[in-house]
C-alpha cells in the first residue's frame, strides 16, 4: 500500500503496534465477519471496558460490610457520571459473560478446537471460568440483599464436595458465614487476581491465534491474501465502536439493580443465583446438591477440557456446524432438548417424589443417584439411537451431544430466570 518513504513516523508507530497482534497479511476468507462474528475481539473490548470502569469505581468503593452499600449509593447519587460508570460496569460485565460464551460456541461449531488449536481451546475454557468468577465476585460487592443471598447460596454449593467441602466453604468465605472477610476476599480476587489472570491468559490466547496462522478456515478455501491493515483493522474498529456505543446506550437507559442493604437474618423471596448460575439453580431444585452443583458441573468441565485431546480421524474446520449432517443433528438436538427438559421439569415438579417414596434411604441416593441413573440411561439410549440412525462420525456425534447439553442448559436458565416465582414455584413470567 504505502511506500515507506511517504508514511509519517506516527503512522509507522501505529502500524508497528498493530503488527504486534496481526501479521502483515491475512487470508481474505479468514476475516469474513460471519466466520467469527468478531466475538473474540468483542470480549477483549469488554474486558478493557471493565478494567477502565472498575478502576474508576475503586476510587469510591469501600470493601467493608458497614460501608460498601453506602459507598455504592454515593457513587450513584453524588458522583458526576458515577451512575453511568457503574451501569457500564454492570452491563458490560453481563455482556462479557454472554459474548465469551457465544465465542466458545463459535469456536466449537466452526471446528476450531482440533490439533494445533487445542491449546487455545483449553486456555479459552480457563478464560470462560475466570470470566464467570469475575462476574460472580463482583456480584457480592454492592452488598445488597441480591448480592448477599446469591453468594450465600452459591458458596454453600461447595459444602457438598465430599471430604473437603466444609473447610473449602470456610476458606472461600473466610469464616462460617458470608461476612466482612468474604467481602475482602472477593474484592481482592475481583480487582486484582482475576483481572491479572485474564491479562496473562489473553496474551497467550492471542499469541496462539497468530502461531496458528490466523483463525480457522476450511481446507479448500481460497488463498488470496489481503493486508491486515486496513482490511482487518477497519472491521475490528467498526465492531469495537458499535459495541461501545451499544453498551453506553444501554447504560444510559437502564440502571444496574440495587436492592436493600444486605440483611443476614432475612432472605428475600425468591432468592435467586446470578443469571449464569440459574441453570444450576434449576438443577438444584430437582437433584441432591452433590449431583446438581458438584458432579454434573465437574463432569461437564472435564469433558470440555478433554474434547480437543480426543483422537479424530476427520477434521471439519472452518465451516459452521461442520456440514449438512452436522446442521441437521444440531437442530434435532436443540429441538429435543427444548421439548424434553421442560417436560422433565414438569414431571418432577408434579409427579415424582423420590425422597418421599424412599424415606429410609439417604437423600443423596434417593434424590441424587437414582434419578441421575434413570436420566443417564434414558439419554444414553437416545444418543445411541441417534448414532445408529444417522451414523455420524466422531465429531458430528460430539456436536450432537454438545448441542443437546447447551440447549438444555439454556432452557434451564430461562426457566430459572422467568418461570420461578416466590417460593420457587413454577409460574408464568
Amino acid at each position, binding site marked *: 500500500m504505502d511506500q515507506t518513504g511517504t508514511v509519517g513516523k506516527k503512522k509507522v508507530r501505529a502500524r508497528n503496534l498493530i503488527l504486534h497482534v496481526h501479521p502483515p497479511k491475512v487470508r481474505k476468507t479468514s476475516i469474513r465477519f460471519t466466520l467469527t462474528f468478531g466475538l473474540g475481539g468483542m470480549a477483549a473490548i469488554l474486558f478493557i471496558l471493565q478494567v477502565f470502569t472498575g478502576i474508576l469505581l475503586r476510587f469510591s468503593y469501600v470493601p467493608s460490610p458497614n460501608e460498601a452499600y453506602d459507598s455504592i449509593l454515593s457513587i450513584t447519587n453524588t458522583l458526576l457520571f458515577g451512575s453511568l460508570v457503574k451501569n457500564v460496569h454492570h452491563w458490560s460485565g453481563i455482556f462479557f459473560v454472554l459474548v465469551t460464551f457465544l465465542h466458545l460456541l463459535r469456536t466449537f461449531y466452526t471446528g476450531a478446537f482440533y490439533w494445533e488449536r487445542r491449546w487455545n481451546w483449553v486456555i479459552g475454557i480457563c478464560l470462560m471460568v475466570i470470566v464467570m468468577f469475575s462476574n460472580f465476585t463482583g456480584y457480592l460487592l454492592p452488598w445488597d440483599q441480591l448480592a448477599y*443471598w446469591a453468594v450465600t*447460596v452459591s458458596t454453600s454449593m461447595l459444602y457438598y464436595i465430599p471430604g473437603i467441602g466444609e473447610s473449602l466453604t470456610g476458606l472461600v468465605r473466610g469464616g462460617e458465614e458470608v461476612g466482612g472477610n468474604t467481602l475482602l476476599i472477593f474484592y481482592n480476587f475481583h480487582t486484582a487476581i482475576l483481572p491479572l489472570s485474564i491479562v496473562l491468559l489473553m496474551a497467550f490466547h492471542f499469541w496462539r491465534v497468530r502461531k496458528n496462522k490466523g483463525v480457522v478456515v476450511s481446507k479448500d478455501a481460497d488463498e488470496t491474501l489481503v493486508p491486515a491493515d486496513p482490511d482487518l483493522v477497519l472491521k475490528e474498529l467498526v465492531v469495537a465502536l458499535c459495541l461501545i456505543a451499544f453498551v453506553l446506550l444501554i447504560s444510559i437507559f437502564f440502571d444496574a439493580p440495587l436492592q436493600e442493604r444486605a440483611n443476614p437474618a432475612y432472605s428475600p423471596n425468591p432468592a435467586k443465583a446470578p443469571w449464569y448460575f440459574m441453570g444450576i439453580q434449576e438443577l438444584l431444585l430437582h437433584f441432591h446438591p452433590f449431583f446438581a452443583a458438584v458432579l454434573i458441573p465437574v463432569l461437564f468441565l472435564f469433558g470440555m477440557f478433554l474434547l480437543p485431546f480426543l483422537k479424530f480421524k476427520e477434521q471439519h474446520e472452518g465451516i459452521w456446524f461442520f456440514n449438512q449432517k452436522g446442521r441437521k443433528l444440531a437442530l434435532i438436538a436443540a429441538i429435543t432438548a427444548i421439548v424434553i427438559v421442560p417436560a422433565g421439569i414438569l414431571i418432577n415438579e408434579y409427579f415424582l417424589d423420590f425422597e418421599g417414596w424412599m424415606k429410609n434411604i*439417604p437423600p443423596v441416593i434417593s434424590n441424587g443417584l437414582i434419578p441421575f441413573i434413570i436420566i443417564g440411561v434414558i439419554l444414553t439410549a437416545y444418543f445411541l439411537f441417534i448414532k445408529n440412525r444417522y451414523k455420524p462420525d466422531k465429531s458430528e456425534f460430539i456436536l450432537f451431544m454438545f448441542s443437546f447439553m447447551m440447549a438444555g442448559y439454556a432452557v434451564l436458565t430461562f426457566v430459572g430466570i422467568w418461570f420461578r416465582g416466590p417460593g420457587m414455584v413454577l409460574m408464568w413470567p
Partner: protein
Amino acid sequence: MKKKQNTASINRRSFLKRSWLWLGVIAGVELTAITFSMFSPGKRTKAANSYTSVKTAGYVGNIKPGSVSPHRNGQFYLVRMNDGGFLAVSLTCTHLGCSVGFDAGKKQFICPCHSSVFSIGGDVLSPPAPRALDIYRVFIEQGQVKVDTDRKIRRKKFSKADLVYA
C-alpha cells in the same frame, strides 16, 4: 566456552545448583503457605463475636407451649413444643444456607430459596434440604432460657433428646 572442566568444579557446581534448586523449592513452599494463610483471615470475626454468643431468650413462664418465636440477631427460632420442651432451631436452611421463614398458620418453616419445608422440630417435610435444621444448645439459668449460639449442632433428624425441659 570451554568444554573441558575438572571433576571437582563440576561437583561443586552441581552441588551449588542443587542447593539453589532446593532453596527455591523451600521458598516456594513458604510463599504458598503464607499466601494461603493470608487468604483466610477467618479467625478475626469469631474472636470479636464470642462475647455475645450466649443469648437470653426470655423467662420460662413467659413462653407458651406450642409457640415459635424468632430471634433473628441470634440467628435462631426458639421453639417450645406442646409438652413444654425447648428447642433452639437455626435459621439457616440445611440446603444452601438461606434463612427460613416461619409460617404461623401451617406451623412450618419454609425456605424461600428452593422451597424446602421443615416441621417445628426441624425435620424435613419437603426436600431439597437433605437433613433437619441445625440446633443450638439450650440451657435454663435462673428461670431464663439461654441459647449458646457459638456452635451449631448438626443432626440428621429431630429426636426427643434434642429437647430441653425447665
